[in-house]
């Protein structure tokens, strides 16, 4: 191949570089023009044999060509590695992204976290206790009479020797009060067990969260005010609340708290059994016998307690119709409530 004309050589070479379809093809083009025995180096070497007045111009011209071709080859190499130029593109940006796996909590645990965090903001800490309890902690210390039905085999799970699975989170309250002096301000979330048949709204195992506040001058007014904050923050501020009298052995007075139905807003639907209200927790002023039992003087300190069912609350919040979904762990169910925080 004649190399007499730098301009022609450059045009031909640039065209070949631009149409090189692969790294190998490009390398072939590079060797042809820029290799040790390529056209451009040979031409440069032959410059020496030219007339002295031509040498300088020819040398400059070929050096310019070499520089230009080297740049083009490099540019083409980058273009090829990026997937080719528009003319030869195979890049499809609509292919699906490689999605990293997302980790997230179970809807029930997240409900618990949300409940706990509200009370943490109000100065409560989280208390812990055993699931396998003694009748003393699960019943006696809670002012539950010796002949109360919940003590028999029919309602509670027993294991030897003389132990049982806690039926409520209240034994944790007793254990906390035994460990510290007032002020006591704790919530205790955890698993509880009762001999209820497994159906859409009952399970022999479920979660509970209880709260306890004992100090001087703690009144029913504090309980109402605190639960108002809780309902506003957890369910939203538009809901109506209704306290009504009730009965629990470990509180006196005992109350239950209803909120206006989160589904129908109070006009009546299947969720609230057409009453417009849904019950969300039981509460009351800690019974003096309970305080005496842990060595507190009920004439000195008073306190309130509440207990709620996170299973039920999660079901209400997310409109989950069947409690069994919570313990089945079908990933298609879990994914519906994916939220990392």
């Amino acid at each position, binding site marked *: 191949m004649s190399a007499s004309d730098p301009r022609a050589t450059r045009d031909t070479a640039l065209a070949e570089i631009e149409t090189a379809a692969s790294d190998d093809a490009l390398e072939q083009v590079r060797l042809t023009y820029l290799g040790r025995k390529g056209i451009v180096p040979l031409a440069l070497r032959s410059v020496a044999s030219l007339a002295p007045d031509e040498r300088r111009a020819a040398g400059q011209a070929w050096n310019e060509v070499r520089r230009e071709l080297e740049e083009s080859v490099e540019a083409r190499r980058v273009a090829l590695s990026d997937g080719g130029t528009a003319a030869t593109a195979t890049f499809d940006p609509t*292919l*699906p992204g*490689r999605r990293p*796996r997302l*980790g*997230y909590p*179970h809807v029930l*645990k997240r409900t618990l976290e949300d409940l706990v965090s509200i009370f943490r903001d109000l*100065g409560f*800490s*989280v*208390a*812990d206790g*055993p*699931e*396998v309890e003694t009748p003393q902690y699960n019943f006696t210390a809670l002012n539950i009479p010796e002949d109360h039905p919940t003590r028999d085999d*029919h309602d509670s*799970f*027993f*294991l030897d*020797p003389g*132990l049982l*699975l806690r039926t409520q989170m209240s034994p944790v309250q007793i254990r*906390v009060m035994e460990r510290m002096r007032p002020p*006591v*301000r*704790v919530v205790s979330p955890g698993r509880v*067990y009762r*001999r209820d048949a497994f159906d859409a709204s009952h399970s*022999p195992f479920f979660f509970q969260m209880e709260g306890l*506040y004992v*100090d001087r*001058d703690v*009144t*029913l007014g*504090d309980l*109402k*005010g605190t639960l*108002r*904050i809780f309902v506003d923050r957890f369910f939203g501020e538009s809901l109506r609340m*209704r*306290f*009504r*009298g*009730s*009965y629990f052995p470990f509180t*006196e*007075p005992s109350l239950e708290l209803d909120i206006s139905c989160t589904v129908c807003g109070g006009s009546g639907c299947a969720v609230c059994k057409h009453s417009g209200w849904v019950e969300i927790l039981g509460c009351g*002023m800690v*019974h*003096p016998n309970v305080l005496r039992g842990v060595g507190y003087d009920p004439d000195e300190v*008073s306190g309130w307690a509440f207990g709620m069912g996170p299973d039920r609350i999660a079901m209400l919040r997310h409109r989950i119709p069947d409690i069994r979904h919570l*313990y*089945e*762990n*079908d*990933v*298609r169910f*879990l994914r519906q409530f994916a939220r*990392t925080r």
Partner: protein
Amino acid sequence: MRIPLSWLEELAPLGDPTELAERLTAAGLECAVEPAPRIPAGVVTGRIVACERHPNADKLSVCTVDVGDGTPRTIVCGAPNATSGPVAAAALPGANLGDFVIAERKLRGVMSQGMLCSETELGLSEDHSGIILLPEDTPVGMPLAEALGLEATLVTEPTSNRGDLMSVLGVAREVAAVRGRRFTPPAPDVPADPGAGPWNIEIEDGTDCPRYGGRVIEGLRWAPSPPWMARRLQAAGIRSISNLVDVTNYVLLEHGHPLHAFDLDRLHGTRIGVRRARPGEKLTTLDDKERETTPDVLLITDESGPVAAGGVMGGASTRVSESTTRLFLEGASFAGPRVRAGSRALHLTTDASLRFERGVDAAGVPAALDRAVELLLATNPGARLVHSVDLHPIPRRPAPVALRRSTLRRILGVDPDPAEVRDILDRLGFERTADSEDRFEVVPPSFRRDVTAEEDLVEEVGRIWGYDRIPDRTCAVAGVSRLVEPRVVAESRARHLAISLGLVEVVTPGLVDSRRELEIGGGGTFFGPAISLRNPMSQDRDALRGSLLPSLLSVLETNVHRGSRDLALFEVGRVYRHTGQAVEETLRASILLAGHGAPGADALGGKSFDFFDMKGFVEVYVEEFWGLPATFAERAEGPFESVAAEGGPVLEVRVPGDPDRVIGHFGAIGSALRKRCDLPEDLPVFVAELDLAAGAPRDEVREFRELPRYPAANRDLALVVAKTVRQSDVGATIVAAGGELLEECRLFDVWEGAPLADTERSLAFTIAFRAPDRSLVSEEVERHMQEIVARVGREHDARIR
């Protein structure tokens, strides 16, 4: 309990019923007004004047029904209780029963001009045992709703401590209290006490039966109840049977006292005993079932033996019937726990037993009996009260209870006007015995055995005064809690660590199938055994778990069978183990990886989980949780075998510093388990379980360390070693030989194949050297590299590739 509003209104003015229900509910008696059931137009009363067997069907009868319009209808009926004489509920053509419209049609060849209805067909109850039959004197052609006296009712659900609210009188007292009125129950109008005559009551143990009373009445005649009583019972949900039976039910509702009527002609002698059953004694109860007794059962006896199970159900032998003319009417107070035990032992729960369990006021026994006598005499012309007995071995005088005004203020956070407090106590039937502006002393009424202490009076005042009147107050910030629970902290960290690794949380029941647990765990120390429950509800949940893995494998099974194969799951939860007489509860984490690592990425060459994915999870988890790198050891045998088998090796996890303590295991699940869970052969499944109680989690507060100022010198080293040489051993040699300046040694490539021999592989490491105070010169680095090459050559027969 269901109370017809008209009944209640007779005793206490109600005002607006819906608003009343709200007030009662707020005061602690949960209740709602239920409107009268609606009966479709075209359903009327009709007398069955004739009832004959259907010519073509054994179970059908052909009735001639008079609906008062002069044209008797022929109606085919399938109910077993269809008979000529009584008045029935007849739905005539055109009546719309919701599911269908009545029309004339042929039934087995006979034209039927309507339908005789059961309660179910009219939506009144679940009772479909037969058609509705009304007393014979019921007018015909009357709309059924009118004939049944259907009306709105108050449906109440009293709490378990308020046995007194299981009666119309009790609810009426509560109504009066919330309406600001006093309540005085009407006094029955009865003849003077005729005395006990020959009657003698013997109570074995007064704690089982604090009071037993009786009335003997003669000159009775079995007849339908008067319509007003029948309707009232019907509206309250009780079927009217006859005057003699209905009276006991009526008083049961009105006073809350279960009474029992014995046919006096079937009772032997005049000595009534109340005692525990003796071994082997049997009793045939009113439902005609012969029942075995136990010493838990309280029996009522006559001179021949047991005639009733006290507080539960009467006996069949002394049953009141159409021939009854004389009654022994029993009114007693049986102890709640005794009745509950008896009811359990007999496997029999009745309206009476439920009331006794909540507590029936012994002091109210005479009034209930008197009321029954009053009603019987009023509805049976010629009847007479002959004898009256009452044995009350343990009378109870309630003790006075004091309420301080300061306590009200301290507990409720309000200070009600003393006059208002007194009024509330009066309205509820408390007898005031001493009084001042700051202290109220009262004796609770006998029917309020739930009130024994000051706090009970606080509740009484609070609920009637109105909880909604107590102003909200937000607790003072001064009392911030200082409690920190290590296990709560550990659980939260463990969960959020797993979540940050991209794992999805599951929550499984703590109750498991002990057989399955044993199969999977093999009974070893780490994986079991489960703790058995003494009274499980079912065999598949008969124990507390000893390991999280069986539950996690159940979740895998459920999901795979429903088509979800790509899983990366974890659970943080407790496992349970006996330690002597106690049970230890420890926190563990379990991880399960199955199928593809990145679901949906198959198109881009996604890859299935393998052994080293799981190992990586465990390594990071251990390092992040405890702040220490894990070490691993292979298990040759042990409880994990059934999980692993040929799926790959099983590794024990240990933390440095306590080399004897195994804190976890991981591996692939084996073929036996795969078969039992019916998992596809090609699905990779790896599980891990870590004991989070094995040590304290790493401290959260970390100290700053200076960032390196001088560059590292990096060298790559590819070594050829025999395949039997472990990477970890080579790496350890490199670190040991590299000197103080070696910062990091990391494996970056493993390669096998030509030109290496079949027995060889290449391990490529990248090694970083760094000095804290200078840039390293290459001579220094080369010297260390030479030492490394020499040592791995000596110790592992390694050569540079």
